[in-house]
């Protein structure tokens, strides 16, 4: 059978990630260090795991309501209010999803008509463009600049808007750059968006991981609450990636539409995970602080040392990534990563994997042990020294 003729044109048009080949190499290496994977190295705190286990002991193995357990939605509403000053009604404004990614997929699909445009700042997490395309939209990529600390500027936003613009994705704090948008940055974008029908899909999955200041949501700003869809989840804040727990908050008509789609495609998020999530919301704030403090230590160490060994690196103020510039090596980001992995057995991810604008940078995730981070720095130093020597010889 000719499956090319069978498979949907759009999915065939979406290229598989080039990162896979690194992981294939990595799987073969037993002694490699990986700063490649973007997930907390912490195990989910025990009291949260225990709540999941206890729910199984009690026999809570059935579906929950489509939107998610009432008590979980109540807890999410209280948490958002407590930590980010966001007010959402647990009845009708919050939907519990299978990770933040499902929420992004739903948001695209309930907003977009064929041919609509969705503005996607890049470099960013890889899902936005493909999900927009599958929903029928045309992604419009806007390249963020290092000199702006990878913030989206109002000029860039304004230039990208056309009559077809349906939504803009705001992926901050950012994977892969570690960049954040402060209140004044958001305020400048809001100035552009107020009075339009453009929706903001604000992916705030790293909201708890900011260093030096608290995260501000676009929905905190005057006149922006009604045009913002807030996507968040438990993966990064509570080290719960494998539980697949996310949620989305928005004005009622939008959540109603998303819930409709969610009930057909997913039914309800995993019940065990929802029970664990209730515990995370009720008693997890200290875990968040503890993990953030840990990440912050590693962040400072990594940034300081990357700069010391000659890879310029702007100070990332959010998430758990550093995004050093490797242009001084004369290598493309993919060449850099491949050689670094083969020669020194440390995996980092080429910036080019995160869309145009990422070329010339690599992403290293510091959600790894201090020992691995220190060792990676030493190996990076070695790699750069060897590289310079080889390059000197060639010239």
């Amino acid at each position: 059978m000719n499956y090319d003729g069978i498979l949907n044109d759009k999915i065939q048009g979406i290229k598989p990630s080039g990162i896979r080949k690194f992981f294939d190499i990595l799987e073969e290496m037993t002694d490699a260090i990986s700063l490649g994977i973007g997930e907390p190295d912490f195990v989910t705190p025990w009291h949260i795991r225990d709540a999941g286990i206890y729910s199984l002991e009690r026999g809570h193995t059935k579906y929950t309501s489509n939107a998610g357990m009432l008590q979980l939605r109540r807890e999410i509403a209280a948490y958002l209010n407590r930590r980010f000053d966001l007010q959402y009604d647990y009845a009708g404004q919050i939907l519990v999803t299978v990770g933040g990614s499902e929420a992004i997929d739903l948001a695209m699909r309930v907003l977009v008509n064929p041919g609509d445009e969705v503005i996607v700042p890049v470099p960013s997490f890889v899902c936005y463009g493909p999900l927009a395309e599958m929903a029928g939209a045309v992604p419009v990529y806007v390249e963020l600049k290092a000199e702006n600390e990878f913030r989206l500027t109002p000029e860039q936003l304004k230039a990208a808007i056309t009559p077809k613009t349906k939504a803009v994705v705001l992926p901050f704090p950012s994977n892969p750059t570690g960049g954040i948008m402060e209140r004044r940055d958001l305020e400048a974008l809001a100035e552009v968006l107020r009075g339009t029908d453009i929706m903001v899909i604000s992916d705030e999955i790293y909201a708890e991981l900011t260093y030096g200041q608290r995260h501000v949501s676009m929905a905190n700003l005057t006149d922006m609450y009604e045009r913002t869809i807030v996507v968040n989840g438990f993966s990064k804040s509570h080290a719960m990636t494998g539980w697949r727990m996310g949620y989305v908050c928005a004005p009622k008509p939008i959540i109603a539409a998303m819930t409709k789609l969610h009930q057909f495609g997913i039914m309800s998020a995993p019940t065990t995970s929802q029970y664990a999530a209730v515990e995370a919301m009720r008693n997890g704030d200290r875990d968040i602080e503890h993990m953030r403090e840990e990440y912050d230590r590693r962040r400072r160490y990594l940034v300081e040392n990357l700069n010391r060994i000659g890879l310029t690196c702007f100070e990332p103020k959010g998430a758990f990534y550093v995004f050093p510039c490797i242009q001084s090596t004369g290598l493309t980001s993919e060449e850099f990563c491949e050689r670094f992995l083969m020669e020194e057995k440390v995996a980092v991810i080429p910036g080019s994997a995160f869309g145009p604008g990422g070329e010339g940078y690599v992403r290293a995730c510091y959600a790894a042990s201090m020992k691995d981070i220190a060792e990676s720095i030493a190996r990076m130093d070695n790699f750069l020294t060897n590289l310079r020597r080889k390059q000197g010889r060639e010239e």
Partner: protein
Amino acid sequence: MEKLLELLEQDCTMSVEQLASAAGIPLEEAKAAIQKYEDDRVILGYQAIIDWDRVRRETVTALIEVNVTPQSIDGFDRIAERIYQYDEVESMYLMSGSFDLTVIISGRTLREVAQFVGERLSTIQGVTGTATHFILKKYKEKHLVFRPQEPEEREYIFT
């Protein structure tokens, strides 16, 4: 500055450079602070936590509840000192509740421990009674769990 202490408590094998940047302070400041902590005996020492069972060296550890008659001037401290001077005593705490002191000792054999309790500890003037509990298995000490490293289960996923 307490940051440094927290970091060292977690892992005292970190280099002073690592400590300084993790705590967000200049290197010289970190060096001076650690020196001062050591001089002031805020930092008492640096030791490894070892799972002796894994190298098949037999040790016996006992937790002994001790009741004493406090002395009029020094209270418990004088008698405590007489007990903790023995090398066999690994840790010792003054307790609230139904007994006065917890004394943790280790020896190579049960007999050695019994001998210490019977011949040395109980004969100290002021000790009025002891109850010895042998430790059968260590699960966790100083936040570290006694079990072999499990193979890393990280799956490679692009996020």
